């Protein structure tokens, strides 16, 4: 209200004058006040529809009656004050300081203050507000001084200011926060054109990027950088040197994509790390750190995925009763009044349209009810077909893998035989998803649910891919392990031989060290696996980008520009523009992440590659979507929580955890490369650390804890806790749905009540009409008539009835209201009237019981 006040100052620089004269008029006396009161009431009667006009009118009238202009205005203001603040006009003017009047004054001052503070909330015209405000302020100013309460004013003002500042600050901070979210505008833009389902993919991508950044920081900060800074430099020992045989090609350009040569012997891969317990002046325990980081990558990912799943679940339950006003809210609150930029406005229009379409699709879907049997049959049929497809492809993969194992033992096999598995896999990946989509058309699901099914099915298919890949890898690893034993001996012999030869030469000095490049190496299966994963990731990136470029962009260009000279309409007809393939992209992302999780233990640099990939694909895909894709035919709303994606991710995370855990726990590490070389198993690094770096009792405690006797009960306890929590959660869920149902019912009821109000009242009256003749009391027809005439609503007739009864001279017991204050004659009167207002008054009557006064109170419950 402050601004209005200022405004008043600005507008009327003569307000001081006004105030002074007003004071005069205030002291002028009740005569005027009364008149003013009349005016006020008149004004009030006219209603608030067009207050300003009325004001003008009344002003004119007053001008006629009175002569002094200024006082007139003041008076008018005063009467306005009266009309709004409902203060009695005459008492305020006296300044005699008797106790009661003081109290009254205080009360009024309070009222005025309240008025001032709530002024903003009143939907009046500015003119009216201004005048009322001025009036009230003058009043407060004047009398507050008299009451000595003006001191609080400054404090109040200060408080108000602080509150406003705080609100503003919070808002600014929120704005700042939303501006800090990366790619928010990009995603909003995509969302406005393609709907929330496509945007959900990009949001998922962004989330993934965040997770990967954290992983990247973890691995780079704790493993790679310490190794580079403090570890032994390149070339100092065999594992950090390119072998002599490879040195000729180590700098070839092809190194960049097949990751041999210098890249293979760099800190990006497992094999580069030394098994020295501590490095550098910090005594940094690198093998330990390597192991812990490898574990914590999984730990962190698990935690993040599960936490975000839980939060999503929370969100989806938190705003549960949204569904009541979907369309209304869209209609009335979707426009963002902050928009001032034409481009943003365009986006907003598009997004509003899209969201309306989404809701319409939802609505139509829920309204649909056709032949349910046919639908069910079709769905079962579709599922059978798809299971057949999956089984077939699974068997095919199995068959091909088996065949490839026999091929690998044979010599001189052709190109096709060598690459058969890959070819079959990519063929399956190419043809199965469209096939699934065709079959899914049979089911006629809502697109959102359809997408989930599609995702699940392709996921099952891709699992086959993963399975073959892992199988091949395991074969490889086993081979390498066998080879390793041989090499180990050779190495030892070479070293011995070298030593011996130098001894034989007769020099007593230490033999010149063997060039590290010449030392025979083991195959180092960990690095091989790492390279395998990196290659796979890179080829996946390339394939994705090329697919987007060719499948979307070139196609769009072709359709767009060749359309001018083609025999049919390319845009509407066959090739048309591509739609954004949500399921494929999401699954690609999920599987890629699985690769990263699996590979990051063997190739710490893999996460860096992935971060780059996600970053570029964010921009690239955004661009591709906006430039060359068309929105889906049926735009649909993504489910609010993308928990389904998260679920897939969790599954993949678990699946990728398994092989890594297996290698850590039960495969021996290579003898001459990596941080765990020389140990029997990788996890021994923990035991070593505990034994050497911790006091003895820690080791003891550890050995106790690792005892199966303790672990099994702990697991049991956890299972029990899970069971209990699950039960509790279910109970809450039930209660929640129950409550929701109740609320819904209440709302419906309210609606119905209001709907039926008009119709029920006449019905009740009819009932009464029917009843009253049956009672055969003389007074009643009259009463009933009375009631009929003066009972438009339910409550008022009771009161009126009670009033009317004494007038008629007949003490009545009719109505519930009367029953509570029974007149003295009650026992003598005949009872039939008692049911007049009860909905079913005839209940006790057919039994022929003489109803007593007890009955009059309750609605005729048969008590006896």
């Amino acid at each position, binding site marked *: 209200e*402050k*601004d*209005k*006040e*200022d*405004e008043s*100052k*600005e*507008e*009327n*620089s*003569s307000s001081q004058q006004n105030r002074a004269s007003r004071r005069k008029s205030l002291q002028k006396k009740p005569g005027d006040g009364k008149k003013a009161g009349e005016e006020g009431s008149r004004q009030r009667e006219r209603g608030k529809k067009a207050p*300003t006009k009325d004001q003008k009118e009344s002003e004119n009238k007053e001008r006629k009656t009175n002569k002094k202009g200024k006082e007139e205005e003041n008076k008018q203001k005063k009467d306005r004050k009266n009309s709004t603040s409902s203060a009695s006009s005459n008492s305020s003017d006296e300044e005699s300081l008797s106790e009661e009047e003081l109290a009254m004054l205080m009360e009024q001052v309070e009222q005025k203050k309240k008025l001032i503070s709530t002024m*903003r*909330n009143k*939907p009046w*015209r*500015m*003119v009216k*507000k*201004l005048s009322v405000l001025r009036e009230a302020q003058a009043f407060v100013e004047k009398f507050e001084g008299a009451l000595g309460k003006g001191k609080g004013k400054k404090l109040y*003002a200060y408080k108000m*200011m602080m509150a*406003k500042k705080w*609100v503003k600050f919070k*808002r600014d901070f929120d704005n700042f926060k939303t501006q800090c979210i990366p790619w928010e505008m990009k995603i909003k833009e995509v969302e406005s054109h393609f709907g929330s389902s496509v945007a959900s993919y990009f949001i998922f991508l962004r989330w993934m990027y965040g997770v990967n950044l954290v992983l990247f920081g973890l691995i780079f900060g704790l493993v790679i950088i310490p190794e580079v800074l403090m570890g032994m430099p390149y070339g100092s020992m065999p594992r950090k040197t390119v072998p002599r045989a490879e040195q000729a090609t180590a700098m070839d350009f092809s190194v960049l994509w097949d990751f041999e040569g210098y890249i293979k012997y760099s800190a990006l891969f497992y094999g580069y790390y030394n098994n020295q317990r501590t490095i550098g002046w910090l005594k940094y325990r690198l093998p330990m750190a390597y192991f812990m980081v490898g574990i914590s990558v999984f730990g962190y990912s698990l935690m993040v995925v599960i936490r975000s799943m839980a939060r999503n679940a929370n969100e989806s339950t938190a*705003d549960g009763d*949204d569904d*009541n*006003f*979907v*369309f*209304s*809210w869209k*209609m*009335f*609150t*979707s*426009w*963002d*009044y*902050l*928009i*001032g*930029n*034409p481009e*943003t*406005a365009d986006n907003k*229009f598009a997004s*509003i*349209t899209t969201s*309306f*379409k989404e*809701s*319409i699709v939802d*609505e139509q879907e829920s309204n649909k009810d056709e032949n349910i049997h046919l639908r069910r049959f079709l769905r079962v049929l579709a599922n059978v077909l798809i299971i057949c497809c999956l089984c077939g492809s699974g068997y095919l993969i199995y068959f091909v893998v088996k065949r490839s194992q026999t091929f690998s033992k044979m010599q001189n096999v052709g190109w096709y035989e060598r690459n058969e598995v890959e070819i079959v896999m990519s063929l399956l990946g190419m043809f199965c998803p469209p096939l699934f989509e065709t079959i899914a058309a049979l089911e006629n699901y809502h697109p959102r649910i359809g997408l989930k099914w599609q995702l699940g099915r392709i996921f099952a298919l891709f699992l086959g891919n993963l399975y073959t890949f892992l199988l091949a890898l395991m074969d490889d690893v086993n081979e390498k392990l066998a080879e390793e034993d041989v090499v180990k001996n050779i190495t030892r012999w070479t070293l011995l031989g070298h030593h011996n030869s130098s001894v034989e030469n007769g020099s007593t000095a230490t033999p010149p060290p063997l060039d590290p490049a010449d030392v025979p190496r083991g195959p180092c299966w960990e690095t091989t696996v790492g390279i395998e994963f990196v290659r796979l990731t890179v080829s996946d990136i390339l394939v994705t980008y090329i697919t987007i470029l060719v499948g979307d962009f070139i196609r769009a260009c072709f359709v767009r520009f060749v359309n001018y000279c083609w025999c049919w309409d390319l845009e509407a007809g066959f090739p048309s523009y591509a739609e954004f393939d949500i399921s494929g992209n999401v699954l690609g992302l999920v599987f890629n992440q699985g690769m990263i999780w699996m590979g990051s233990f063997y190739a710490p640099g893999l996460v860096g590659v992935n971060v780059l990939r996600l970053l570029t694909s964010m921009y690239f895909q955004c661009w591709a979507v906006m430039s060359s894709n068309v929105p889906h035919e049926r735009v649909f709303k993504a489910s609010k929580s993308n928990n389904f994606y998260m679920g897939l991710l969790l599954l993949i995370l678990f699946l990728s955890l398994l092989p890594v855990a297996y290698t850590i726990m039960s495969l021996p590490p290579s003898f001459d490369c990596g941080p765990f070389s020389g140990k029997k198993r990788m996890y021994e690094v923990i035991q070593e650390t505990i034994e050497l770096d911790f006091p003895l009792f820690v080791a003891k405690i550890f050995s106790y804890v690792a005892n199966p006797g303790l672990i099994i009960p702990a697991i049991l306890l956890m299972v029990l806790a899970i069971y209990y929590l699950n039960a509790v959660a279910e109970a809450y869920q039930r209660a929640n749905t129950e409550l929701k149902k109740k609320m819904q019912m209440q709302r419906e009821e*309210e*609606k119905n009540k*209001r*709907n039926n109000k008009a119709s029920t009242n006449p019905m009740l009256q009819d009932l009464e009409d029917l009843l009253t003749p049956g009672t055969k009391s003389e007074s009643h027809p009259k009463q009933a008539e009375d009631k009929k005439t003066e009972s438009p609503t339910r409550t008022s007739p009771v009161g009126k009835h009670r009033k009317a009864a004494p007038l008629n001279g007949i003490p009545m017991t009719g109505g519930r209201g009367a029953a509570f204050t029974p007149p003295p004659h009650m026992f003598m009167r005949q009872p039939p009237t008692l049911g007049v207002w009860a909905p079913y008054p005839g209940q006790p009557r057919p039994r022929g019981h003489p109803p007593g006064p007890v009955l009059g109170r309750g609605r005729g419950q048969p008590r006896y």
Partner: protein
Amino acid sequence: FFFFLLVYRLHGRYHEMAPNVVPMDYTKDPDVKLPMQLIINMPELKENPFKERIVESFSEDGEGSLSFNDFVDMFSVLSEMAPRELKAIYAFKIYDFNTDNFICKSDLEKTLNKLTREELTAEEITLVCEKVIEEADMDGDGKLGFADFENMISKAPDFLRYCLKK
């Protein structure tokens, strides 16, 4: 006190829209009005699909010309400080195209067309309108009174955030 500057700035805005009509000092309380055409070209309103309605519902004569009082009025309602109820009242006024104190089907259709730039088909529009009435109409008279509107809007989570804010 604190918002002296603000009002001063507002007056500056008002003045610069029509420098030759609006006097710089308001001490004499002149009766000056600006036509709607000038107001809706303000950058704050330019992109708003309901700009005409907004100006109309704030103007005293109902035809869209604003005096400086109305102008300040408009900004005070549209400001983020304005309370929810007040916003609801004016929002209702804005959406009530034919000013019959009810939001009826034709109003809804107009709103929808403005919101979507008439990109929905006729059936879709009627469907949406019916749904809105069905959802929000509590007294069953086939149109939304202010009570219905307020009831509905007060439950909207992002009303404060989006609607009528500047």
